């Protein structure tokens, strides 16, 4: 219900809406009529301790993969980052602050409107797996070492973000494992190794 109302407000509201922080944010984040950030609601409910389920900062298990938790300032007590490619924020509002500063958009006063818009317009996560066999192949290829197939629940919904939300150094600095819950099955043909080889 909220989605059509928001869309109407954003695109039908004239100059005021065009100049609002919400409109400015959405002017870049909308792609083919859809928000390009998947799982905004679901990410806010990701258990805080999720990355600790998988953390192995020193490759203690010897599988060749090291991943560390990204900590960020929490105004006195550090927080575990989960937003952004560099895990730069633990909370939506902090990430919005960072993005707002980067794009010179004043987000403070419109924060709740921005959150509401992103929550309303964000597509719900989908699974790239069409079958149990797809999932088994994904795991057999070793992808699940970082794009983990563990799940968490929000009420009756079981969610598989396909990310350990850890920082891994793939040779060009540390980046978060990209959650694949916004991918369709085409994601399953992606290969880090092949991509790196093509880049050489």
């Amino acid at each position: 219900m909220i989605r059509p109302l928001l869309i109407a407000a954003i695109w039908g509201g004239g100059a005021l809406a065009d100049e609002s922080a919400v409109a400015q944010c959405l002017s870049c984040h909308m792609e083919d009529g859809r928000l390009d950030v998947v799982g905004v609601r679901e990410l806010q409910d990701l258990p805080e301790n999720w990355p600790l389920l998988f953390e192995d900062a020193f490759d203690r298990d010897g599988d060749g993969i090291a991943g560390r938790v990204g900590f960020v300032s929490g105004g006195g007590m550090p927080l575990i980052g989960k937003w952004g490619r560099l895990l730069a924020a633990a909370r939506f509002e902090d990430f919005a602050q960072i993005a707002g500063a980067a794009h010179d958009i004043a987000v403070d006063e419109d924060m709740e409107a921005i959150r509401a818009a992103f929550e309303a317009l964000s597509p719900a996560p989908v699974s790239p797996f069409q079958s149990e066999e797809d999932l088994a192949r994904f795991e057999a290829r070793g992808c699940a070492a970082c794009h983990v197939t563990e799940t968490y629940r929000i009420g009756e919904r079981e969610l598989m973000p396909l990310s350990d939300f850890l920082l891994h150094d793939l040779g060009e600095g540390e980046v978060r494992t990209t959650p694949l819950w916004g991918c369709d099955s085409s994601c399953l043909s992606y290969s880090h190794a092949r991509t790196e080889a093509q880049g050489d």
Partner: protein
Amino acid sequence: MTKLSILAATTCLLLSAAGASAQEIKAAVPSADQGSYNPQLTAKEAVLTNWKLAISGLRAGKFVSDNVARAEGVEYPKLAAQAEFAAETMLLRYASSYWLFAMDETLDPVDGSVLLAAMAASRMPCETACDAATEALTTAFGSASAVLEEAAQAAELAAEARKGISDVEALAELLSDMATYLDSPAWHSDLSLTAAGMDGKEVSARVVGTLAVWRNIEPFVGMRSAEIDTAVNAASDRLLRDVRRNTRRKEVLAPDSAEIETIRASAAQVAHELRRAAGLFQQG
């Protein structure tokens, strides 16, 4: 040292030099309320990161334990796989956080028999009529969840108490206590899972947990003494190498074994360097 951590430390120390007293390393991180959220950690937050890591690790153990304990209508093979992941995760996170119990006398380690019972239940084979095995799993992991939550709550209180001390005191205390821990038998004694043949994993996690602590506060040491920073890193690398070589696939590690002796020598060297690092932040 990562670029981000160097930047964080540089920011903190430059700000400190600009006007703070010798007692405080002011990072002056603006809060989100001021309209410009800065994710970089202050020195105090970097210290508290280690407490957060340990507390969150205990809670991660609780999370996976709850998943097993509260599972309903899950077929036994799937539940057993869940339990295997839970047991391994719980052990690693608990052992990585073990330094907490050496650092603060108000904190007690959890009852090792509870962890052992969960590990044993996760290994119980069952082909048919698995009601009893399922009940054993849910009971054992329910108990594990309870003791881990209790430990996490106690550690939270201990961490809160440290928010009031100065940045330099916090850094000195942590570095000094890590040195004491590595010089003590704490990282290889009172192991919980010897009966499950997991001494190697437990010892490894107990030591590697302290290396994570070092990494989190390293930038602040590096900005005061590049020489000590390098020395701690070199000693840590050697310790990590020796831990890997001497703990992998080791079911039992006796306190007087050659493996423990090798690790002990490397750990003592790290402890020595950490004490020097602590000295950078101590008075007198």
